[in-house]
Each structure stands twice: as structure tokens, then as C-alpha cells.
């Protein structure tokens, strides 16, 4: 049986802090490419939190979609428009 251990609690604390800081940091960047990468990092923290919440299939899906697909679409958008935010 897969049992819950106290290490999940530590993981959950670290990941919750990481998610909140990552979300705020991603929206405050001037360089849009860095904003896309930080949102990818925040998606990985969310994938760890899904595993701590006992949904490992969602952790795998969120890890792939949040790091490859969604930042990929945003990077295509940045490539066709402009890289930095205007004043």
C-alpha cells in the first residue's frame, strides 16, 4: 500500500511557498521570455503538490503540459510579436 508520510507535509509547505512566489514573480517581469520560464517552474511546483495530494496521474500530466505545452505556445506568441514589455 502506498502510505502517507510526514515528508509529504514538508514538500507541501515548500511547494506552496514556491507556487505563490513564482506566480507573483512571473507577472512582474519586464522580459516576457523570463515570465514564460518562471510560469513553467511554477507548474513543476504544482506537479509536486499534486503528488502530495495523492493524485500522481495529475502530477505527471501537469508536469508535461505546464512545462512543455503552455510555455511553448507562449514562446511562439513571443517569437511572432516582441520580447520585452513596452513602457
Amino acid at each position, binding site marked *: 500500500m502506498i502510505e502517507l508520510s510526514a515528508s509529504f507535509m514538508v514538500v*507541501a509547505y515548500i511547494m506552496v511557498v514556491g507556487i505563490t512566489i513564482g506566480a507573483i514573480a512571473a*507577472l512582474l517581469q519586464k522580459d516576457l521570455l523570463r515570465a514564460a520560464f518562471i510560469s513553467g517552474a511554477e507548474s513543476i511546483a504544482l506537479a509536486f503538490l499534486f503528488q502530495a495530494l495523492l493524485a500522481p496521474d495529475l502530477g505527471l500530466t501537469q508536469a508535461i503540459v505546464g512545462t512543455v505545452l503552455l510555455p511553448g505556445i507562449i514562446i511562439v506568441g513571443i517569437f511572432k510579436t516582441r520580447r520585452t514589455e513596452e513602457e
Partner: protein
Amino acid sequence: MIEVTIQLLSFFAAAALVIIGITGMLFLDNLIKKIIAFILLSDGVNLMLVAVGYVEGGIVSILLPGMSPSEFASKAILVFPVGIVLTNIVISVSTTAVLVALVIMLYRRYGTLKSSKVLKEERR
């Protein structure tokens, strides 16, 4: 004293993500950042859905051999929110793709990504 569990922490994180996402979508100026805020909003909604289904001291919802169905039903986490979240992930990828396509078309026509210039109402 309220006991701090993983479920409570997840609800706080989900609320924070939803608030950051909604504020970003409404008040940020750059169109690409509005799309990144939408991604954060749907991440928050997914986290909230999974946290609703969490069972304290439970097991992953896999029926292993040797487990009786009633023991499985009482200890496993709820499976329906997992289905909703998978659907939500697909929907958010599609919506992001449509939004980025529209932003690219508008950039080609107007030359700027500032929403105050692009999304202004035209005089008719």
C-alpha cells in the same frame, strides 16, 4: 486551534493563485502577461478541485489485489475531481492557443502589445 493539513494549505494556495490570476487578467497592460495570468488562474482552479477530493490519511485510488471494495471506498481519494482537472487542462491549452493566435493577429494590425491601445473602443 485550526489544524494545518495539506488540504488547508492547498486551499490557501489555490485562493492565492485565483486572486493573482484574476487581478493579472483585469489590470495588467501587456497582452501576453494577461495570457500568463489566465494560465495561473486555471492552475489555481485545478488545485482547488484536487484539494476538494483529498481524504485525510488516504491512499491513491488504485485497487490493488487483496484489497476489499469497501476498504477501497472508505480510504481512497475522490476520483471525479481528477477527471474534471484533466478536462480543465485540455480546455486551458485550447483557450491559450486561441488567445495567442488572436494576439498575434492584432499585433500584426496594430504594432503594439499594450492593451490600452489595442483594446480601446472605436468611434463609430
